């Protein structure tokens, strides 16, 4: 995609770090979200148990993915849901457009869906003359401001109240500037309730799809998801194919993990389980329900049992809140649908290392994400794996775009380094070199990067090996 070719991670990082307001907004929000999570997942033992259960459900689901998806399809069809399969986001967009055109639909009200962000569905529909309207309050705010989400759970978290007040005043006709959140809410409520009543199509994501009964589960607090899936005559649900679970009994632990990790709630306001369109005798609900199941690279990720773990993700966003990098640069800097640690491992696999290989460099491997991941994805190890594949020194990479970083200079540096660590003579020479020249190295390359905000490392006149020898410490 053209937008990817233009994406300059370094520049977006520099810009984000220079924006003091942005950093303050993220720091405030992520500090708060971490605290809320801890208030609910307060018992470490129970939390670990839950995470192990969540991990097992998702892992087992992935090993049985084709069977579960076949069952889901059959059960959904039995329930009257029309099932569509899309290999790519372009196909998924065309499917949605096809459904809209079949019903001569113009206005689509959307519940929050990260898959629709992945598809860039709004842009696609707008280009086709349609009117896609985000209804989740956060999504509504950023759509007014023509921005993508900066967080997968709280999409407008990069904006504070004053900024939101300005966005409302600038973009909603007849609205004057107000920082009163009650007033802002009332304005959005008024606009959006009118849209639900008159929309042609309602669109939603899916948090869990239950194979054994063909049920689509949606998790939300606002009620916009229920509005979008209940009021308009047609409901289109979008899901990534990894969202399927085997049975209803799998849902309560995953639901608790999702609520606790995402927003620090024991339960959301609404848990909405949809089993099909309006049946004879029922007075409301859409007359047609469509389920669009998107692959977009996911089936390829399955092939490798290590990389496969990426697909365990339930999109809670807690790795974002705990990441010291995300909390400083914010979501937009990643230039990707999914930011933060999960984005660092998912995006390069979906779009290719050649396009998104720089994302895994944005981690200090501090393990904060792994510590809290509700389904225990070993994110740091997956980041290392993608870094390996970026250079692909062993020519055994499998991720699209592997080896994009291969270069003689860096390879030589590491080969030289290795020699100094496995050969005692080379090690001695290296230490001697460091003792004599270490403190007068020219500040270029890595040392320049280091000394931009730090003094140069001070190397000792005598190494520990020298001291140990002098002190007579036994050498084997």
């Amino acid at each position, binding site marked *: 995609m053209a937008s990817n070719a233009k994406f300059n991670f370094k520049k977006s*990082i520099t810009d984000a770090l220079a924006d003091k307001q942005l950093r303050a907004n993220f720091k405030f929000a992520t500090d708060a979200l971490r605290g809320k999570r801890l208030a609910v997942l307060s018992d470490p033992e129970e939390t670990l148990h839950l995470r192990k259960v969540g991990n097992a459900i998702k892992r087992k689901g992935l090993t049985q993915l084709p069977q579960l998806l076949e069952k889901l399809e059959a059960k959904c069809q039995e329930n009257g849901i029309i099932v569509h399969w899309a290999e790519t986001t372009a196909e998924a967009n065309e499917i949605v457009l096809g459904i809209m055109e079949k019903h001569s639909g113009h206005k689509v009200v959307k519940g929050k869906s990260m898959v629709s962000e992945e598809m860039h569905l709004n842009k696609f529909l707008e280009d086709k003359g349609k009117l896609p309207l985000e209804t989740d309050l956060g999504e509504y705010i950023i759509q007014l401001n023509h921005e993508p989400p900066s967080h997968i759970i709280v999409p407008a978290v990069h904006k504070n109240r004053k900024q939101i007040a300005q966005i409302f005043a600038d973009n909603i006709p007849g609205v004057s500037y107000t920082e009163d959140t009650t007033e802002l809410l009332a304005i959005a409520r008024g606009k959006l309730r009118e849209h639900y009543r008159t929309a042609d199509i309602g669109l939603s994501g899916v948090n869990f799809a239950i194979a054994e009964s063909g049920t689509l589960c949606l998790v939300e607090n606002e009620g916009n998801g229920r509005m979008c899936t209940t009021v308009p005559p047609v409901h289109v649900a979008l899901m990534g194919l990894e969202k399927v679970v085997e049975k209803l009994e799998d849902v309560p632990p995953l639901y608790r993990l999702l609520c606790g990790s995402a927003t620090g709630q024991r339960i959301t306001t609404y848990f909405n389980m949809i089993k099909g369109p309006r049946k004879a005798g029922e007075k409301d609900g859409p007359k047609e329900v469509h389920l669009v199941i998107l692959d977009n690279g996911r089936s390829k990720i399955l092939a490798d049992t290590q990389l496969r773990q990426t697909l365990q993700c339930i999109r809670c966003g807690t790795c974002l809140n705990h990441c010291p990098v995300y909390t400083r640069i914010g979501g937009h800097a990643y230039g990707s649908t999914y930011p933060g640690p999960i984005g660092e491992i998912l995006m390069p696999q979906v779009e290719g290392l050649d396009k998104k290989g720089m994302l895994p460099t944005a981690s200090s491997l501090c393990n904060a994400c792994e510590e809290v991941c509700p389904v225990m994805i070993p994110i740091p190890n997956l980041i290392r794996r993608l870094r390996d594949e970026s250079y692909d020194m062993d020519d055994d990479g499998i991720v699209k775009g592997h080896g994009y970083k291969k270069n003689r200079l860096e390879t030589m540096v590491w080969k030289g380094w290795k020699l100094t660590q496995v050969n005692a003579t080379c090690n001695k020479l290296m230490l001697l070199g460091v003792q004599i020249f270490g403190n007068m190295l020219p500040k270029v390359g890595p040392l320049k990067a280091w000394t931009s905000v730090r003094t140069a490392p001070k190397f*000792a006149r005598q190494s520990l090996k020298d001291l140990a020898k002098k002190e007579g410490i036994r050498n084997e």
Partner: protein
Amino acid sequence: MGNNPANVKTVYYFGTCLVDMAYPKAGMAGIKLLQREGVEVIFPREQGCCGQPAYNSGFRQEAKDVAWKQVQIFSGNDYPIVVPSGSCAGMMKFHYLEMFKDDPEYYEVKKFCDRVHELTSFLNTVLKAQYTDKGSPVKLTWHSSCHARREMGCTEDSKALLRQLKNVELVEIEREHECCGFGGTFSIKQPEISAAMVHDKVEDIKSTGTKKFLTGDCGCMMNITGHMGKEKVAIEGQHIAEFILERING
């Protein structure tokens, strides 16, 4: 003097490459604290780096070669291997296994990994070291490295040793859980983000109002004191082993 209830007679010492090059005094202090408990310390001078820099940077084969060399160097006896760094210890205890998981050497590597201990947890939980503070009253704060905290889980051991020192007041830092921004090669591959992180860490340290911070990892220390030096912040950083040794020797 402690009681060394497990009657450990001999340990290996893995000094780490950074200590070797830049913080040899901290490394020697670790050796002396072990000797003080009646333990003989062997420091094989052929040792090198644990391999983490290459492992984290996408050069797994180089990391593996270095790791295998360390495994061999420490294979003469099955003594515990004590490391004055949570990060290097974590690398050797957990990530060596990950690197060799599909290799025939796995079991030999695993035996090595099982013998790896971080210095302060070895002193506190195995040797049960007891310290009498001879220093004058001082206020300081503690920085935990991410791997000390999340891989080796030795943060509480480090603090337990410090709490034995009666004239030392430990002021907890806000956001102790947060990375200082070192991350090995991360600090030079993403220098702007790393700079923002270390800046915030220094601010948090300043907010404790202390004039000194301790840590068990020299990577973090080089990062944090380096930024303090550049910003002319008059706070001193020191490795915990060096500090304890000074305090008990008066």
